[in-house]
């Protein structure tokens, strides 16, 4: 399934399609292409999938409102929302439809809601209606009483963004896609029948190259010979509150959107932590993931407008993400000047929502540009599900423990994660402490790994046969400890 760099990469291996970038877009495309009799390879430069920008996504499946009509991303968002529900059932991921409210605080904003509703209806966003103060008081009791109306979009939902990546990728691998992590593309040479690609010292060919490289999509396109767009990172800082406040809101809460962003939201993650943010700040460094005091201030101010009772002391975690902005819309097209190159770039919000629709569109583009897409006779539609104790009732836990005693061996206290789940995550591709965190939630709870870190390190070292001093947070350079006295 997920392989390390350099292993088993044959010299001059030939792929029909190579996808560069193992985030949500790349893995969704991989899964879609895995329906067909094609040789597909997915290459991700980080040590694990989703370690680029997908892991810092807010996890919102947008209904499709607040996107300018007439743009590609607006159409793909609505399509993606519908597709996500179907795929969530096939890939066994928890998708919660919670609905969203775009909240107006004065008459002018309320008037804008009418236009937003109109635009949404033109895009075929289902179920939109404007609700009044009485409705808000009843259905969103903690919302500021300064709110006078809201646009209710029932089809908004939440999903775990990195688990979405893992689930797409696992199912793609189940269906024959080769997934390579820790492999960075160094050069792309257009050749007669496609491209000669060199990555981490190995060379292979691909008839088609799908560039889904997120923040570095401009670099990859340039490598292939087309320098037609620039990815400008737009930073977003967000903060998670203690799960105790899970029912602070019932719907996802949005203010009216600004020109560049949907604003400071009050939402929650699919694991139950309320989330406030994100900010939207254009930065120059594609690696600037710093949290700022100014960012925290902005988020607290903005979120308190919606929910005045938000308590700074409830913040238990924070993270930053960088949106890969290439203009206002998505760039998804076959590049006629570089035949075989399909750029999938500038996938900022609503990229997560649109991902399944993007995958369909890319499959269509490949077909339209000469790739024979014969459906496989046996396509494993359903992913092999794993268990998570924190999301099942205790009765089911009892059954699981009878099946495998390891489910009763609790490693992470705050999120109730068992040793069996940790081992399972490692077998599915976790190689780092963050990888374990994203797959199992161990270390993501209120104590941030103070209790479970040592045990997790030992299990990871044991399962991967690496010394404890090689265990990293998220890849080389981020080793957890510097020295092991037992191995001196």
């Amino acid at each position, binding site marked *: 399934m997920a392989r390390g760099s350099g292993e088993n990469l044959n010299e001059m291996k030939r792929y029909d399609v190579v996808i560069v970038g193992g985030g949500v877009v790349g893995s969704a495309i991989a899964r879609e292409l895995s329906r067909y009799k094609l040789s597909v390879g997915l290459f991700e430069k980080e040590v694990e999938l989703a370690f680029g920008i997908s892991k810092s996504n807010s996890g919102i499946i947008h209904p499709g409102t607040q996107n300018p009509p007439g743009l590609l991303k607006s159409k793909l968002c609505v399509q993606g929302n519908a597709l996500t529900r179907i795929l969530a059932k096939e890939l066994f991921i928890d998708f919660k439809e919670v609905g969203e409210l775009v909240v107006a605080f004065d008459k002018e904003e309320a008037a804008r809601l009418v236009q937003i509703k109109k635009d949404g209806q033109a895009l075929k966003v289902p179920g939109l209606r404007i609700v009044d103060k009485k409705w808000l008081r009843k259905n969103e009791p903690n919302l500021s009483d300064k709110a006078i109306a809201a646009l209710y979009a029932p089809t908004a939902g939440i999903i775990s963004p990195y688990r979405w990546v893992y689930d797409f990728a696992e199912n793609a691998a189940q269906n024959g896609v080769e997934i390579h992590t820790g492999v960075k593309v160094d050069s792309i040479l257009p050749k007669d029948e496609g491209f000669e690609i060199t990555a981490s010292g190995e060379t292979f060919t691909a008839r088609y190259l799908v560039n889904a490289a997120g923040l570095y999509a401009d670099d990859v396109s340039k490598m292939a010979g087309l320098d037609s767009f620039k990815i400008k990172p737009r930073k977003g800082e967000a903060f998670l509150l203690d799960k*105790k406040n899970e029912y602070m809101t019932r719907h996802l809460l949005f203010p009216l959107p600004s020109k560049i962003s949907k604003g400071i939201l009050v939402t929650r993650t699919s694991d139950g932590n309320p989330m406030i943010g994100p900010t939207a700040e254009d930065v120059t460094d594609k*690696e600037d*993931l*710093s*949290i*700022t*005091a100014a*960012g*925290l201030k902005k988020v607290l101010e903005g979120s308190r407008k919606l929910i005045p009772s938000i308590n*700074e*002391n409830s*913040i*238990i*975690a*924070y*993270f930053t993400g960088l949106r890969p902005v290439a203009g206002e819309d998505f760039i998804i097209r076959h590049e006629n000047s570089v035949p075989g190159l399909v750029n999938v770039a500038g996938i900022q919000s609503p990229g997560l929502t649109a991902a399944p629709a993007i995958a369909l569109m890319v499959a269509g583009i490949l077909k339209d540009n000469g790739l024979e897409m014969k459906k496989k006779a046996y396509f494993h539609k359903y992913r092999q599900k794993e268990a998570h104790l924190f999301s099942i009732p*205790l009765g089911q*836990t*009892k059954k699981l*423990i009878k099946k495998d*005693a*390891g*489910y*009763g*061996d*609790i490693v992470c*206290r705050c999120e*109730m994660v*068992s040793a069996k789940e940790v081992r399972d995550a490692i077998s599915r591709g976790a190689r780092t402490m963050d990888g374990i965190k994203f797959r199992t939630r161990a270390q993501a709870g*209120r*104590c*941030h*790994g*103070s*209790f479970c*870190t*040592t045990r997790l*390190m*030992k299990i990871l070292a044991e399962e991967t046969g690496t010394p*404890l*001093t090689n265990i*990293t*947070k*998220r*890849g*080389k*350079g*981020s*080793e*957890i*400890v*510097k*020295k*092991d*006295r*037992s191995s001196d």
Partner: protein
Amino acid sequence: MIKKDLVIVGGGPAGMAAAVSAYENGVKNILLIERDQYLGGILNQCVHTGFGLGYFKENLTGPEYADRFTQKIKAIPGIEVSLRSFAVKLAKDKTLTYLRPGSLEVIRPKALIMATGCREKTREVIHIPGTRPAGIFSAGLAQKLINIEGLLPGKEVVIIGSGDIGLIMARRFVLEGAKVKAIIEIEGKSRGLARNMVQCVEDFEIPVYFSHRVLKIHGKDRVEKVSVAKVDGSMNEIAGTEFDISCDTVLVSVGLIPENELIEMAGAAIDKKTNSPVSKEVNKTSIPGVFVCGNSFKVYDLVDSVTADSELAGKQAAIYLRNSR
């Protein structure tokens, strides 16, 4: 369902003292559940001395103090110990569900004593801006890595907070061959015991910056440096006083939070600010028959106080059980 009069959740110093005290006060049917593979709780990683001066009139290390109680418990057949056992759910009617390798157990004792200790405040809780590289540890995790696993977290350390755990760890790092470049404390004086300032900081000439705060942590994959500045009386940075300290490790030692999520789940009243149970009397919670002792009741400086508090809780549980017959 197993039948027990009293279940104690937590086999650290609090739980052990409560168990022994309850037994000595007449409760003969006790279950003590502990999540780790051994009794002793946090004491197992506190290899330093300073324990027991009050209770035993001796200067013991954490493990020695714990051993005194584990020996007592071993000698009492009426106290059943279940290790690697994790309490996951507590209901208002005192039904407790716990997991251990191979089984899920449900028990409904007549009384419960919660001795679940504390967790540490993390960097996120005190909002230190900057990046999130490897190399940032709570002092307790660093202590566990060094003292239980023999793993050295880093070579050049900056410690945030001058509480006892931070000071103890400063010494520990130096003894293990690392360099402690600074202790940064936002208050004007140390939050820990004066003796720890002497034997952990002054003994090793570690620089302490009082009335300073860490403005930012830098580093992409691993900590590279911290930015520090002086603060005024309202804890705001004084312009022009900022400087950087290069380091590869940041230790966060800024306070403890009692762990009371289980009783909160059961509906007991909890003080939102301190996370301690709200109760009319010491050690009691708003649920009759459910008691709390040790650091999960109130954060104590010394384990001797934890023992005294827990013995009281054990006694109260015994009285409750007698009266509810």
